[in-house]
């Protein structure tokens, strides 16, 4: 494990973009991405950045702001934890078929892309959401293969 972003030298990101930038730098410098640039490398970074953005957005929009942030990369993938000061847990809204409601699908997206998700209480109030996002393409939902002609 190569822990990063723990300690006073790294300020907590205040926006989704800052959180993504932090995670992108971390993954790129970890050496865990395949040498060849091509779709597989792009896909796994894509999922990690998406989950990061969704977690950060939820903490900011529903949790009153990001109060804690840590990210590390290991052979299991990206372990990301975002803490906010709200004790409310995320909920998945049931979407009526054929409709596209405004918002509300960040959380299902996180759950779909992450290999594991944990919600832990934070002290004195609030919660910490820990997710593991694979960086090796395993467990990813299948991507449609273009027709071979």
């Amino acid at each position: 494990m190569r822990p990063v972003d723990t300690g006073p030298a790294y300020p907590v990101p205040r926006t989704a973009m800052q959180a993504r930038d932090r995670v992108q730098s971390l993954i790129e410098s970890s050496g865990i991405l395949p040498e060849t640039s091509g779709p597989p490398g792009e896909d796994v970074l894509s999922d990690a950045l998406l989950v990061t953005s969704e977690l950060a957005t939820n903490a900011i929009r529903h949790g009153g702001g990001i109060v804690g942030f840590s990210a590390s990369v290991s052979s299991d993938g990206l372990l990301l934890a975002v803490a906010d000061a709200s004790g409310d847990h995320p909920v998945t809204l049931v979407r009526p078929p054929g409709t596209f409601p405004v918002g509300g699908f960040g959380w299902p997206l996180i759950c779909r892309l992450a290999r594991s998700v944990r919600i832990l209480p934070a002290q004195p109030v609030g919660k910490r959401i820990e997710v593991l996002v694979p960086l090796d393409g395993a467990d990813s939902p299948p991507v449609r293969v273009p027709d071979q002609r």
Partner: protein
Amino acid sequence: MDTHHAGTYGADARNSVETRTEGDVRVVVMAGEFDMDGADELRTALDPEADGVARFVLDVSGVTFADSTALSIMLQPALNRPVVLAGEIPSRLGRLLEVTGADRAFAVAPTVAEAVVLIVPPRRR
């Protein structure tokens, strides 16, 4: 402060939205990263209450990142009129559309010119 990357710190977002009208088609060119911040321009451009707009064409070829907040904004006008994604869809955006199933909400065309005239069948419910 972070020193990992060069970027416009202090700006709300790294994106641009350009809008133009071609008859009753509103063409919106999106470039950069779209998330909860700096989304006002996109919301205005994709206002589902826009008058005189029979179709939205979104040039998404320059989108380098979009999350579900951005996608929500893109989906709103799709409720009541065709929204056509134009240009080569970047892989990250394609991934988001596929994983969320939102790819079914949009028509696609290789270019803006084709998107403007594309015949879009009415959505079946």
